[in-house]
């Protein structure tokens, strides 16, 4: 059992969720409410990681993370370190790869709020912020929960992008999914089986918890 790979996987999944969810609430809400030119283009960009082969996405990220590419150069200037083959690198890659999984459920949830509920809140004296906290967020909560579940589970299982950008450095970029692949390559079937079972269990518990929490709403229909 590769405990450091489990730790990298869990850390990666947790950080991805923590950073991506607030961002996705803002982005999903904007995409749901706003009407602007190029909205379709924005939505296409967000959805792109969904259809792109992970190796292709990983390849482009690898290129742009290089020290002579703008993103990599900027990062080096800010932090002094590189992005390729580091935890920060796979975290950023994971944020991008998970964008559609986090944004889309939240955007759909915002789209399903009848627009006059917000107006009713304003006419009841709630400020836009209070409306967001008291009315909108409780109503999109199931969407946020499923975004969290999808992001967390997808990050645990992400393979191609991580391998391209991060390689397989112990304790830094080797996630559980990559460790399993390594074990199989080394003919260690028992190790691979143990870790696969663990990944299955963690994914199942995460999804179960999240859907359980989202389902506990007395006011929901049905």
């Amino acid at each position, binding site marked *: 059992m590769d405990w450091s790979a489990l730790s990298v996987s869990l850390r990666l999944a947790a950080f991805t969720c923590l950073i991506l969810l607030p961002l996705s609430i803002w982005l999903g809400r904007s995409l749901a409410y706003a009407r602007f030119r190029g909205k379709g283009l924005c939505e296409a960009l967000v959805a792109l990681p969904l259809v792109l082969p992970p190796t292709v996405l990983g390849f482009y990220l690898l290129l742009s993370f290089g020290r002579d590419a703008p993103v990599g150069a900027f990062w080096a200037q800010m932090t002094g370190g590189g992005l390729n083959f580091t935890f920060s690198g796979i975290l950023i890659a994971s944020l991008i790869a998970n964008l559609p999984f986090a944004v889309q459920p939240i955007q759909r949830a915002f789209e399903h709020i009848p627009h006059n509920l917000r107006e*009713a809140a*304003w006419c009841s*004296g709630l400020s836009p912020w209070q409306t967001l906290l008291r009315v909108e967020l409780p109503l999109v909560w199931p969407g946020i929960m499923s975004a969290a579940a999808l992001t967390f589970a997808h990050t645990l299982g992400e393979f191609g992008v991580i391998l391209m950008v991060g390689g397989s450095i112990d304790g830094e970029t080797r996630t559980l999914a990559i460790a399993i692949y390594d074990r199989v390559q080394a003919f260690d079937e028992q190790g691979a089986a143990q870790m696969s079972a663990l990944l299955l269990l963690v994914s199942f518990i995460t999804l179960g918890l999240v859907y359980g929490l989202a389902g506990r709403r007395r006011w929901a229909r049905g």
Partner: protein
Amino acid sequence: MGWLDAGGGRVADSSMAELASGPGAGLSVAVNQTGPIPLAAEFTCQPGELLALVGPSGSGKTTLLRTIAGLYRPQQGRISCAGDIWFDAEGKRSLAPQHRRVGVVFQDYALFPHLTALENIQVPLRHLPQPQRREQAEQWLAKVRLEGLGKRYPNALSGGQRQRVALARALAREPKVLLLDEPFSAVDQVTRRRLQRELALLRQQIDIPIVLVTHDLEEATALADKICVLHNGVSLQQDTPEILFSRPCSPLVARLLDRHNLFAGVVVEVDGQRRLQWGESSLEVADGLVDLPLGKKVTWYLPPSDIVLHRRGRPSQGERENPITATVSELVALGGITSVSLRVNHGDMLRFDIATHAARRNQLTSGAVVNVSLLATGIHLMLGHQVRADAHDKRK
């Protein structure tokens, strides 16, 4: 004639007050824009008064309601309520909905589905400390007769109950104007009657302007003190239901109010008296004919209640007034009321309603020849735009 004097006095008072302090105590709306939704509407609503905005769908009723609430901002105009200016395009002033103190009952009620009935009513009471907030919400719940249902979520309430929660939530805001957007359209007939009755009762307890949007003329007539008729965003006429139905200011208003008996006539002189030539008849008209030049073509309207059917063989009341001979062309019995269409010699159709038993007693059958009188006081001359301009002047 005492009531007339009293009424006149009140009108004078309110216009004096408007002169003195600018906007009056009630709600006053004047908005104008060419697009994207064309609007040219002007109306007022005094405290305690219920104004119904009526018009076909797409006539801008709901947009006007949203404009009052601050949810829609027109290009031009001015809205004031209870002495405060809520919107003034020229002064670049537009209060946010949060600062307008409006109570709105939305068409589908827009209750917060994740909050119980009681919590919904507490939302506009957030400025109060919790125990008081709860107490007030309970009181509002009792006022709309929903005691004991406070813990229910909206999806566990019937349509009528939801409407009451929405009304309680709107009133808990202690609004300066109450806006109702087709509040009875989503419930069944029986519930609608009951809710309408309750609204009529509730009105006696609140002294703020109430604006009701509806496409149901019967509802508007039953509930409203005044009706404002809208068409394509333009306010055509604002008056009491009685005046509106007996004296619509234009053929368009008459048509929108589902009025028939619109005809064209010519001003003539018979034996030194002004008369209205209509086909072969020259009609006596009580009001307005004297001021018109001879030969002028006018559109005129007659309320169906001012058509009197002569009884066979016996003289009827007002028999000598504008007697007309006509042929029954259609009889439609709808329950206790029969709608009668008469064809006059020159082809125009007169329509009126009588009780079905009266139709039977008078042996009205299709093709029968009958005599009717058109009451001179009922004949209303429409001078097109001129009348409309007058109406505007009076309001100013």
